[in-house]
């Protein structure tokens, strides 16, 4: 019982509730972002129940209802094969947000161990890992993802792989900085002096104390990954018909854009709203949890 547990200040339920309310009032953006994210999650879960024409998310075609303007029956109109755009937009909440979660889980699974190793072990391990990371960071994320998605067959799996392959280096850099600063603290020195094993120090002390910035970064990155995935699908390198992916729907609507504006407008609004919601949430969380982090994306 020598090791100190991860720091957790004692708090009563009442005080925490009051504090939470006060902070929500102080940062309306966090409140709005959280509410929008919750809404998107609910839409994704209950899409089959909410969507007026669930079948239209798939291969259904309605040759007699092609390119109908928005109306009471079809709030967002219908597309070039007569599918209800509102239904497809609602089902879209199951596509790119889910890709974003998978990408970020993969990025953390690769980035966190490498960052911990680099930051905690230092020396040549640090040198090798960070130089490789620097090379990957020299590409703007969408660029390398684009090159990768080009050589892989066009599919959502390829998009996920391509984006994950360019996203992990950011987590290496983030965790390395955290781990290196924690590794130098007196209590870690004390653990070493007591002969506690390296693995135990990493998992019991360094990792728990590096987790907050990772969570903040993940919430900030969801919007970025959604935008990247939509862009790849827009360019034809990602989702293929009939997947109700928002980026693909914008690309398909482009040819009918004038005069049939609704094909492009609503799926694009869905991308904007989703990215906006997650960015608001991430920004607010960073202000609450981690005010001193750098402000680069």
């Amino acid at each position, binding site marked *: 019982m020598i090791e100190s547990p991860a720091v957790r200040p004692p708090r009563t339920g009442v005080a925490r509730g009051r504090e939470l309310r006060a902070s929500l009032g102080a940062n309306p953006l966090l409140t709005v972002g959280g509410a929008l994210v919750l809404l998107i999650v609910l839409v994704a879960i209950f899409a089959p129940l909410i969507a007026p024409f669930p079948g239209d998310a798939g291969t259904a075609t309605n040759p007699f209802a092609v390119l109908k303007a928005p109306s009471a029956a079809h709030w967002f109109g219908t597309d070039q094969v007569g599918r209800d755009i509102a239904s497809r937009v609602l089902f879209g909440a199951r596509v790119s947000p889910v890709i974003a979660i998978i990408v970020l889980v993969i990025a953390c699974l690769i980035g966190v161990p490498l960052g911990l190793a680099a930051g905690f072990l230092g020396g040549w391990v640090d040198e090798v890992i960070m130089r490789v990371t620097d090379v990957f960071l020299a590409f703007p994320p969408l660029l*390398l993802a684009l090159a*990768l998605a080009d050589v892989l067959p066009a599919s959502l799996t390829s998009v996920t792989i391509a984006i994950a392959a360019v996203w992990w280096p950011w987590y290496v850099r983030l965790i390395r900085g955290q781990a290196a600063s924690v590794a130098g603290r007196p209590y870690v020195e004390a653990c070493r002096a007591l002969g506690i094993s390296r693995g135990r120090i990493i998992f019991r002390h360094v990792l728990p104390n590096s987790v907050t910035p990772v969570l903040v970064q993940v919430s900030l990155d969801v919007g970025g990954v959604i935008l990247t995935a939509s862009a790849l699908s827009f*360019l034809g390198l990602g989702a293929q018909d009939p997947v109700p992916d928002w980026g693909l729907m914008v690309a398909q609507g482009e040819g009918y854009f004038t005069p049939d504006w609704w094909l*492009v407008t609503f799926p694009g609004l869905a991308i904007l709203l989703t990215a*906006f919601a997650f960015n608001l949430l991430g920004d607010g969380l960073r202000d609450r949890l981690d005010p001193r982090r750098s*402000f680069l994306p």
Partner: protein
Amino acid sequence: MLVFVARRIALAVVVVAGVTVVTFVVAHVVPGDPAATWAGPHAPAAAIARARAFLGLNRPFAVQLVSYLGGIAAGNWGVSIHTHRPVLSDLMTAAPASLELVISALVLAIVAGIPLGLLSARRQGRPVDHVVRAGSILGISMPIFWMALILQLVFSQRLKWLPAAGEYSPGLLFSHPLAKRTGFPVIDSVLGGNMPMLGSTLTHLILPAIVVAAYPAGLIARMVRAQVLDVIGDTHVLNARALGFGERQIFGRFAMKLAWTPVTAAIALVFGYSLVNTFLVESIFDWPGLGSYAAASIATLDTPAILGVTLFVAVAYVVANLVVDVVQAAIDPRIRLR
């Protein structure tokens, strides 16, 4: 200072070499068997073997890598499958149009982003601050290919205020021919004293520049706000207050001075982002730059061209970062000592 610059250049060369290795790996290792692709579908084994020898794929991996790196360094970037011309010369033809677009967008983003960020910081926690913050987050959340289509619909199709596509009205070429000097239409029309053409190029630039500026403007406004609030309690700012400087001077002059370093770093970063964002925007606006070239290459699955663009943009990005590092070190002596 010289030592600093030399070290930064050496580091940039290492990164560029690494970037080239990554594109090589993407090109030669990821997609199955390039020899089979080259030989075509259902090719007999002998034809594939011949293709392998022809493409040099039977050589050891390291030898292939070295010859690829040598080719890139010597300016041999492969031949585009859809234009049948050397990729590097295609890129050189396309680059000025993209640079013109990205630079205009960045100027727009700086002009809009810095005052908004300062305003937001001065009114921290007030309604204006919330509106600017929400607006800047909206900017970085924008699917710009969608924004491009919407602006085109509203401002050129419906309102007919601005041209929908192209770098200038091609009809003008008959009455006011554009002499090519630098390849940048705006600069060329200024140099030639060609006023009608200058007007045409500028009005054609407005919509695409606004679209490309959305992300950097949001990012810069956010950064300026955060950095200014970070230093607003510092001693030198308190000193300025004690000396009786007005709030406008305190924020715009004393606090902003320290905020410049991270803001210029962010500008280098968004230069690379924006260059890639042109891939999504240029084909919509029929803008004859790197983005249209990349989009056409993607549509025709022209791998040499795509990898060429990738490498070109990555190198441009490394160079932009290098320039900013050196400029920062020149402005801020603390950086040189790190």
